[in-house]
């Protein structure tokens, strides 16, 4: 049974998302759109499944929810902070490159961490070292390198490690 499922419905969660997104994009539940949504939900995963790489699974869902809320709140703060810095005198800005050591493993967790860094206060991720031990970030205004690294590690990296159980 599970072999049959894997053959015809290789990515059930993604199928569901595709189905819903198609309906939401069209803002309609007309039979034609339901049919198309079903078609896409079945065919697209079937086409891309062979390209998929094995990724760590989310093991702690409630940590993931809490993490999402934290990040949304931080995005809000980031916006005000960057807005103030843009309006303030640029002479006082102290931009910097910082290397942050990585503890998380795997492409997906590192991607999530890098994206979070880019979305939150004054930091943009620029590059990950080949051995995936370091992430290079650009900081708009650096005050305390040590504190920044600690904040990234405790606020974002620790929950990500918990979410994927690594």
């Amino acid at each position, binding site marked *: 049974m599970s072999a049959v499922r894997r053959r015809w419905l290789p990515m059930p969660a993604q199928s569901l998302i595709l189905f819903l*997104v198609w309906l*939401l*994009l069209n*803002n309609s539940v007309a039979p034609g759109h339901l049919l198309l949504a079903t078609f896409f939900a079945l065919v697209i995963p079937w086409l891309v499944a062979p390209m998929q790489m094995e990724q760590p699974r989310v093991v702690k869902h409630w940590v993931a929810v809490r993490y999402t809320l934290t990040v949304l709140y931080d*995005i*809000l703060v*980031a*916006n*005000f902070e*960057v*807005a103030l*810095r*843009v*309006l303030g005198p*640029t002479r006082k*800005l*102290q*931009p*910097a*490159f*910082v*290397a942050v*050591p990585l503890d998380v493993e795997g492409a997906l967790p590192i991607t999530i961490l*890098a*994206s*979070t*860094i*880019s*979305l939150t206060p*004054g930091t*943009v*991720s*620029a*590059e*990950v*070292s*080949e*051995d995936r*031990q*370091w992430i*290079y970030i*650009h900081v*708009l205004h*650096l005050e305390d*390198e040590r504190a920044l*690294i600690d904040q990234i590690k405790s606020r974002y990296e620790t929950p990500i490690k918990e979410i994927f159980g690594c």
Partner: protein
Amino acid sequence: MNPIVELIICVFLLMGGLFVLLGSFGLLKLPDFYTRLHAPTKATTLGLAGLLIGSMIYFFVNEQRLVVHELLITLFLLITAPVSAHMMAKTALHHKIRVLKRTSGQELTGAARERREPPFDSA
């Protein structure tokens, strides 16, 4: 339309517009490529969120239907903004774009470009 609802929509639209404007202003004002990268990726996220929330309320009140395109746009934006910022920063590193002189940690750019570990143990 109820004037209070109208006011709320206006506040969201103005907030949104203001932040998008600030993002563009930052693009103009900030001194080098890397600092400029910060303004549009961040300020614009909140700006667009404001505009989209305003639009959602408007359609919900005015046309009595739930419009969810906006939520999808927000989601796609949140997924794509950091990726494009990352790609631009990476490209800038590889093209050795001029860095603002007082930027600290410039010795890291060479290592970052070659994706090596940092030249010294900064941790």
